[in-house]
């Protein structure tokens, strides 16, 4: 049997004998992606468990078992882990690393050793973040946004968390840089930008956001650190500083960061929909360019987080209008996907189920986003559960659901095994139902005035919190079951073969499954579009030994 990337690797320093050290020092993009996946999903479950304690506390009005200050620290911990350690690195770090080079026919990313360094920088940042749990006066209680002036005055361990966020930002920048150069330099001969798979377009747009927006929040965090240690006065009203400036600088990054999360997820959707409709994607160019458009417009909308913070009415109207514009390229994508399925040969496999489920949840998340982008309603809904429900529908029901879709779609590629279809479907339905039961009541509670980040509430909101609690129980069971099914399939599953989905993109034309160390046996010449189907069959076929077309 031929060797796969599990059997051999290149290392950053020397070539150690022990398998463990080979994993620690590996520069292979597939192994690095897999290690990211292990760490990232571990953090995901930690943050889910943390969120579940919040739900338990909120089961009834009044204090149950968390005191108010601990409650503040717990939701901050949930936010910091989910945002900085899970969802921002998320899809690019895992599938950007594993799949993107395979899709463009490259042997690795442009700077493999930098990639290795970046992974450890991420681990280092994660350790700093976690260390603040047990050092100083406890974990930050500011919320993940660290708004000044409270973050400057609180005596909890905000500095450590800020340093961690800065280090994680550096890792994010270097990943983006690596991917931009890779996509520019290492595409297989003949593959121009409009022959790239759409996931690569998503990663490309994301990488630019990582590169251009992250430094701004990085320096903002540095300024906040200097403020706390030396008192430079920049955000401190006692010295003439302007705390709202912090909000502006923070959201100049953190709003594009939202699109940084969703763009690669849309990329996954654009892979799955044509593969399981057995039909060439509708409007390839519009999907590709709308990714770039979302990345571009995403820079200009940060002000919609500040409608209630003090901003001129003109600015509010402009930011509101610019925010509406984001809905246009997003809408284009959705109509393109629907049009792709029209008259296609739809196969309701697990990845397709996740993708279709996301179409429902993300549309709810997206459209409720448009309502709070309007200045008037936002004054009413800002900082209520409506907003909480909105961004969980968009982030969890959009990004994370598509992450899971990708997890099922590329599972056979990464592991060489196939999971049991029936069980994975049960896991999907548990997740989908649990998710909606968990979050939908919050729209209603928020609309009626339930504020976010409160540890107590009026008795009339009890019913919504209790329904949400039962949703959470179903949802978490679904998550655990899904991972159980996948991990078990990795151990005992049937071999999947190299192209179980009859998909067309290059990552499904590897000589072995799982792939060998340096990917394709030969780099192919790409003179075809990424999703060519004819009567439900892939048009382009390769001789996997020579990577020459044989159709």
């Amino acid at each position, binding site marked *: 049997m031929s060797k796969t990337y599990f059997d051999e690797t*290149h290392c950053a320093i020397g070539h150690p004998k022990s398998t463990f050290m080979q994993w620690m020092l590996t*520069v292979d993009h597939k192994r690095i992606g897999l290690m990211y996946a292990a760490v990232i999903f571990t953090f995901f479950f930690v943050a889910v468990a943390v969120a579940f304690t919040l739900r338990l506390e909120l089961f009834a009005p009044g204090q149950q078992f968390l005191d108010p200050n601990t409650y503040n620290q717990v939701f901050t911990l949930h936010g910091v882990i989910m945002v900085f350690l899970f969802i921002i690195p998320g899809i690019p770090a895992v599938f950007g690393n594993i799949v993107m080079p395979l899709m463009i026919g*490259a*042997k*690795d*990313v*442009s*700077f*493999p*050793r930098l990639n290795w360094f970046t992974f450890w920088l991420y681990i280092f940042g994660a350790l700093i973040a976690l260390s603040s749990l047990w050092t100083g006066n406890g974990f930050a209680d500011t919320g993940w946004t660290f708004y000044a002036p409270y973050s400057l005055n609180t005596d909890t361990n905000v500095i450590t968390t800020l340093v961690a966020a800065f280090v994680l930002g550096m890792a994010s*920048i270097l990943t983006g*840089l*690596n991917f*931009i*150069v*890779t996509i*520019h*330099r*290492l595409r*297989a*001969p*003949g593959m121009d930008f409009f022959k790239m798979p759409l996931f690569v377009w998503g990663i490309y747009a994301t990488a630019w956001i990582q*590169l*251009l*927006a*992250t*430094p*701004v929040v*990085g*320096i*903002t965090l*540095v*300024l906040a650190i*200097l403020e706390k240690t*030396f*008192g*430079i*006065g*920049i955000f401190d009203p*006692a*010295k*003439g*500083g*302007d705390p709202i*400036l912090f909000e502006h*600088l923070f959201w*100049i990054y953190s709003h594009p960061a939202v699109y940084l999360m969703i763009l690669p997820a849309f990329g996954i959707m654009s892979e799955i929909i044509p593969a399981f409709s057995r039909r060439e994607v509708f409007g390839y160019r519009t999907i590709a360019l709308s990714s770039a458009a979302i990345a571009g417009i995403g820079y200009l909308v940060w002000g919609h987080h500040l409608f209630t913070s003090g901003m001129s009415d003109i600015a509010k109207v402009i930011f509101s209008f610019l925010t509406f514009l984001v809905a246009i390229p997003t809408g284009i994508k959705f109509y393109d996907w629907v049009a792709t399925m029209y008259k296609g040969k739809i196969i309701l496999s697990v990845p397709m189920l996740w993708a279709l489920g996301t179409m429902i949840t993300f549309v709810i998340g997206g459209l409720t986003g448009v309502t709070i982008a309007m200045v008037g309603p936002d004054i009413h809904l800002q900082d209520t559960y409506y907003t909480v429900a909105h961004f969980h529908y968009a982030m969890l029901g959009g990004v994370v659901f598509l992450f899971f879709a990708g997890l099922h779609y590329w599972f056979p590629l990464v592991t060489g095994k196939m999971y049991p279809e029936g069980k994975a479907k049960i896991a999907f339905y548990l997740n989908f139902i649990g998710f909606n039961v968990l979050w939908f009541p919050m729209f209603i509670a928020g609309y009626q005035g339930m504020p976010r980040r409160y540890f107590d509430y009026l008795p009339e909101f009890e019913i919504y919190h209790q329904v949400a609690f039962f949703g959470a129980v179903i949802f978490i069971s679904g998550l655990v079951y899904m991972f159980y099914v996948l991990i078990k399939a990795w151990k005992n599953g049937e071999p999947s073969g190299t192209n179980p989905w009859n998909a067309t993109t290059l990552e499904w034309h590897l000589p072995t499954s799982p792939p060998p160390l340096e990917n394709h046996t*030969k*780099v*192919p*010449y790409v*003179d075809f579009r990424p999703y060519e189907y004819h009567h439900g069959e892939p048009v382009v076929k390769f001789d996997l030994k020579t*990577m*020459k*077309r044989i159709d």
Partner: protein
Amino acid sequence: MSHEYVPEIAVDRDGKEHEVQGWQGDFYGGKLGFWLFMLTEVMMFGAMFLVLTYYFSLHPADFLEASSELNVLLGGTNTVVLLISALTMGLGLLKMRNGDIAGAKLMIWATIILALLFLGIKAVEWTNEYQHGVFLGLDALQSGNEHSKPFGQILFFGMYFTMTGLHGFHIIIGIGLMLWLLKRINAGKVSTEHHILHFNIALYWDLVHLIWVFVFPYFYMIGAGDVVGGVINAH
């Protein structure tokens, strides 16, 4: 990973051959990557200039007043020192490209010495300011005591120490990079044929001096003329 890289050939359906770009020895890729990294530095300092401009617009008089307290002579000397160091760095790169390794090393050493000179002058400046009671953490830059400066001046000096400090940090990193570069040249890893490291460090140094070219006028020169008396004091 140090094995000799032989570019692969991809053959299209007409039998035409196309050279495949690998990640190994990709000079253009290395250049592009570092330019992108420079872009992140620009965004970072850009955000600080944004903060600076915003507070300048709120407290113009205080800013001019505070600016006039800085030592233009030392700051100006440092600007010249840094500009010359950019020249020596560029000459070193030219020599490297032309195969004059010894000359290139000489120029890198000259750059290092100029960088140290810059840091020395900077240290003298900061010491003087400290002795005049103007430094982060001292009373003059805290609010609510008898030595407190007005808001605008606190913000000016806060940004001054932050930005020149971060710039100085970049100089120190630069010196470290140049020493590393010399080590790589001595080890034969950087040569005329393979000088991407030298190229990128030169690029880095250019950016560091370019940032100073903006820092200098914004902090030292806005109050350098006789304009302070002509502005109505806002306080």
